[in-house]
């Protein structure tokens, strides 16, 4: 979704743009591949030009050129309340950019008891003196220098790679507080660079921490404070090329540092896509997806990362691990890919991945369904899953999120639209008797050829009707997906006004979905009260993925922390309690965010003693000196 929005158009404009891209791509391809269907590229010469971004790639070496150092996303894009007290979203990148959001202020103040007069602005600039000096391993530095691989010990570069996007990490940055950060950053530009760096790290006993897109929400990028060796952040962002596309087998061989939006855009130029669209895809990288077992919004059509990956190459202290062929399935003992996927940077660096690709879908259509209550909505999703007819994406928001989504409606220009909205509202609440405080909405995304999409759409709407669902239009659907990528920006807005929050996820069997949603939300509210939070928190959830045997559920939780002396600690206690509640209700420790260091304490109970032993023994063999010392997972 994010890529669609960052394309900067509504669905029709986007369609045109995509078609144009395809034509352009066709022109470009002609001379390059000739009669071969395979595109190839070689590792750039050592010390190649530093401004890779000029090639149209999103992520420069110096991330600070385009991204915030203490918040989410692009520097030019943020929410703010303007002088009139209206919310607006700045920049030009997104569909919402430059728009006024009239309902947000009231929702914000009403939901959190926040007040625009009570501000908590962040420290404006990163002061280099706040950054601990780098502990360098001189011998290592010398040898890296001789390889010509770019590196830096600039304070800003180091701070950027010392955190993900957990609440406590961002909160500390806003306060200008900086803990242990990497001592050095290196930017390999190809697999061989990584091999060299890992060899040198082993030789000089340096701690390596792979860094992809920096979107972790599991404290995975936090430097272990007890680490005494020099910590080197291995930033894969410059390994961002598609090395070849195999149109006969529909696979693409890609360097692991590429971020989602670039991967999709570049593949689109050739008429393909991976269809892997995690909410973070603007910034998260292919290597990061593999390392955390990522999941994409459209997994119903394309599958999760483990379904998409055909071949992985990873550099470990013991050497390179990879399979010898690209067979679509093998019976050769436990799948070694499953040691790599989810290893969270503890075993090595993923450098190259062969992924399945698909022709770009001919037609996309959003949709939405309103249900009288959450219970009916869940029953409908369950039925859709049972009939195995889930659209590319189907998500069910609870009532609070429905209201939240509503508050994010941009100002409408025409009186007619607002009249129509009023009429729709009247129809649903008055004529159909839906209680506005109970109704909830499912958002849908269909993909495929036009005829099939329409047929599929009818099938899903027919099922929805059996559960009291009413079709509520494409607009509502699309806005629901928009919420996904702006929510991270919204958190920064909240933090300007005493509001902190986060989302977390789980997966759970179908029969427990309703119970877990109710209990976890209630637990959050209760814990906030017990911990002295002065205002009622926002505690809401949505079902974001359906499977044969269960669903993925997201919880959103935020509160106004005025009056608390240590809000982050309170926040962490509540999140901890919420996770305990999730586990007690049969939910998993994580569906796709991973474990990192944030959820390590529950690993043993989650995978059993023997399971821990298995993983430990793999780590001990692959990395006996703990070169990949981020201490995630185990």
């Amino acid at each position: 979704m994010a890529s669609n929005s960052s394309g900067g158009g509504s669905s029709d404009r986007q369609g045109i743009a995509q078609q144009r891209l395809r034509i352009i791509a066709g022109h470009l391809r002609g001379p390059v591949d000739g009669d071969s269907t395979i595109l190839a590229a070689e590792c750039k010469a050592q010390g190649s030009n530093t401004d890779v971004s000029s090639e149209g790639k999103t992520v420069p070496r110096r991330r600070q050129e385009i991204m915030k150092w203490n918040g989410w996303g692009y520097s030019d894009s943020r929410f703010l309340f303007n002088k009139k007290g209206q919310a607006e979203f700045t920049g030009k990148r997104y569909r919402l950019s430059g728009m006024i959001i009239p309902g947000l202020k009231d929702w914000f103040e009403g939901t959190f008891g926040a007040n625009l007069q009570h501000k908590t602005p962040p420290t404006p600039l990163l002061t280099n003196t706040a950054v601990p000096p780098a502990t360098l391993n001189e011998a290592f530095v010398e040898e890296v220098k001789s390889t010509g691989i770019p590196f830096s010990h600039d304070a800003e570069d180091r701070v950027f790679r010392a955190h993900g996007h957990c609440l406590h990490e961002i909160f500390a940055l806003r306060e200008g507080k900086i803990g242990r950060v990497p001592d050095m950053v290196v930017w390999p530009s190809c697999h061989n660079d990584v091999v060299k760096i890992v060899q040198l790290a082993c030789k000089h006993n340096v701690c390596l921490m792979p860094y992809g897109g920096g979107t972790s929400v599991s404290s995975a990028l936090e430097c272990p404070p007890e680490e005494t060796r020099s910590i080197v952040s291995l930033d894969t962002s410059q390994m961002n090329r598609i090395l070849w596309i195999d149109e006969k087998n529909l696979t693409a061989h890609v360097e692991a540092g590429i971020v989602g939006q670039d991967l999709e855009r570049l593949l689109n130029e050739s008429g393909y896509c991976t269809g892997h669209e995690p909410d973070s895809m603007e910034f998260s990288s292919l290597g990061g997806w593999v390392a955390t077992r990522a999941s994409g919004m459209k997994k119903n059509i394309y599958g999760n990362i483990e379904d998409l990956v055909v071949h992985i190459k990873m550099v470990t202290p013991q050497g390179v691990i990879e399979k010898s062929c690209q067979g679509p399935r093998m019976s050769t003992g436990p799948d070694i890919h499953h040691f790599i996927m989810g290893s969270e940077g503890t075993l090595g660096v993923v450098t190259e991945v062969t992924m399945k690709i698909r022709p770009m879908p001919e037609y996309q259509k959003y949709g939405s369904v309103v249900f009288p209550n959450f219970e009916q909505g869940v029953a409908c999703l369950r039925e859709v899953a049972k009939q195995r007819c889930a659209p590319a994406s189907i998500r069910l928001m609870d009532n609070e999120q429905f209201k939240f989504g509503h508050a994010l409606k941009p100002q409408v220009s025409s009186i007619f639209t607002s009249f129509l909205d009023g009429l729709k509202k009247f129809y649903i609440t008055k004529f159909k008797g839906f209680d506005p405080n109970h109704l909830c909405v499912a958002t849908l995304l269909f993909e495929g050829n036009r005829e099939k999409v329409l047929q599929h759409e009818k099938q899903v709407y027919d099922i929805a009707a059996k559960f009291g669902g009413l079709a509520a239009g494409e607009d509502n659907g699309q806005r629901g997906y928009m919420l996904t990528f702006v929510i991270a920006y919204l958190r920064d807005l909240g933090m300007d006004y005493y509001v902190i929050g986060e989302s977390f996820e789980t997966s759970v069997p179908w029969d427990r979905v309703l119970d877990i949603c109710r209990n976890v939300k209630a637990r959050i509210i209760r814990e906030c009260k017990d911990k002295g939070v002065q205002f009622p928190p926002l505690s809401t959830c949505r079902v974001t993925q359906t499977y044969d045997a269960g669903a993925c559920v997201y919880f959103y939780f935020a509160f106004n922390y005025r009056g608390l002396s240590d809000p982050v600690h309170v926040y962490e206690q509540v999140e901890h309690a919420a996770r305990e509640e999730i586990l007690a209700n049969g939910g998993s420790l994580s569906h796709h965010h991973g474990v990192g260091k944030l959820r390590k304490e529950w690993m043993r109970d989650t995978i059993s003693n023997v399971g821990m032993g298995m993983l430990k023994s793999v780590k001990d063999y692959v990395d006996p000196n703990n070169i990949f010392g981020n201490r995630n997972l185990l």
Partner: protein
Amino acid sequence: MTSSSQYKDSGRAGLEDVDEFVDILEERRRSSDLGYAFRTFNPQPYKGAPSCSTADLNKAVLESQYLSYMAKEIAMETGSSVEEVREEVCGILEEMSQNLQLGFIRMMAYTLSKVFKRLFTSILVNMEGLNMLQQAVQESPVILMPNHRSYMDFLAISYILFTYDIPVPVIAAGIPLAGMKMVGEILRRSGAFFIRRAIGSDKLYWAVLSEYVKTIVRRGFAPVEFYVEGLRSRTLKSLLPKLGMMHMVLEPFFKGEVYDITLVPISISYDRVLEESLLAHELLGVPKPKESTTGLLKATKVLQENYGSMHVNFGRPLSVRQLCHGKINRCQFNLVPRDLPQQPSAEAQACVSWLAHLMVRIQEEGLLISPWSLMACMLLQAPTTVLTEEGLLWHQLTEKTLWLRKLALDFGARLNWPGQVPDSDVISSTVALHCSVVQRKAGRVYLVQENEPLRKCPISPEDGVIRMAAPLLMLASYRNQSMHVFVRPAMLATAIRVTESTQRDELFSFFCFLQDVFSNEFIFIPGKSPQDFEEACVLLKKCGAVNFSQQEVMVLDAGSEVLSFLQALLQPFIDSYQVMFRYLCEEGVHVLSEKQFLPAVRNLATELILSGELCTYEALSSDMQKNVLSALRRLEAVTKLRASEQNEYRVNKAAVRRIGDILSRKIPPQMLQTTPDARL
């Protein structure tokens, strides 16, 4: 440790002030009962849960995954068809189900207003507890857990809830009530659902019952009320909790089907229990009359008498979630579908048992001790001949009762002692209220003996014992109303006397032994012996009877009166147990059934009473006799024969003798092996 202090808080905090009690009959005596019964009744149930019709509820139960699974399994086992089993399920449901209807609640409200006004001077309710309950019913499914002393109990609770606009509960009642003409149906429509006695191993019945109860808890449209003691206590002493129902009501929380469940302990205290003489006769083996409507009508003579006041003390609502925190790992329910039957784990059983015991303890703490109960303690310590022949000096009884009042207050008891009246008046009116048991004549107090119509032949000495026993057992029952206040210090006092030691660990081990032997008699929370012992020491110190340090417990001179009172309080229990141990150790007894045991031991006790060897009549009580059997089974000195249908037991005489010897200090106590409770 924390949980023990927690329950103290929860049981007592905020409920200290006895003046907070309000007489709900006062209003009824002033205004129209009809107007009251037909006023708007608009309670706020849990999360505005829609009311659930009987048909809906039964349908939900019948169609549940759990019951369809069980039906299949049972069909397989018995070889009948699933349809037949399902029909049986329908039959059970029909017999069981409540049919709560507002109209009948109103009718009951009207009738009960009339009845209560006639029977009781007042029905006193603590408003604070009621207000908290009102709040609680809106937040979680609520389980009302009253103690059970009289048939009046559940009527009174529904009546009070109706009066204060709180959703009236559905109530677990014994099936015999359902069999009464009209009355059964009226109760059903007032919210009672009926449970068979002795379900035993009837798998299907268990399944239907538990699904029925769990569905009500999950839906939360009405509070569920049940007696955790299982039965009406015939001895007015708290009974060991039964765990079956407790499991059923807690399971929806364990399995995450509800966020929380609120337990509300309710302590009902009667100045005088309607069924007092009936209960005493039941204890003596005169069978309980079958509940029947005509029986009820005959009992209308009950209506002619005065029963004083009734106190209903609503305890602080307790969150199961908080209570169980750290006591149960709910992840254990993750690996089996929640709809399928699952044997509760040892952890779950221990947690449920602990919680059930805790609830009974909180009920006890919420009871109000009447002056009469204190007097009963004192009367029973006088020799029987004094009570029957010479008479006890009035002023002596008064003095001793007042002395005991002080001790009870020192021990933290909640007394129901009228404040504005001179003490002598309180005592006179108390005796007047209990003229069925004692009489005051010429400055002395005498026991009232039953006046059987004169038979042709003179009564045998044995019959004489039984006749004497009835009023004495009634007295014992009223004494039992305050036993929970004294039992821990009394056990320490006994340990001090029997061991003749000052060493704390020696006293503690004898104290634990006494708890082991008497834990069917009194309620001790499993695993809390050290705290119980500590409490006993603190209380005895508080009243100036002992001093204690880390190593020692020293008796003070001033303490002899307290200590000998407390020892004497426990003595009837010890003596009675010894009689039964003696019977079991006699030659010839190896295998016995409960049916043989009860009359045989009663005969032995009668003999010993006649010979003067046994001073207490309580050995005649069938409840105590059964408790001894249960205790010995728990201590593995008696084992139930598996093949036997007649409840036959094999006696390990050496083991029984050893327990008796330790109790009389012939041999020192070694910790007895106790097995965890598995009563389900």
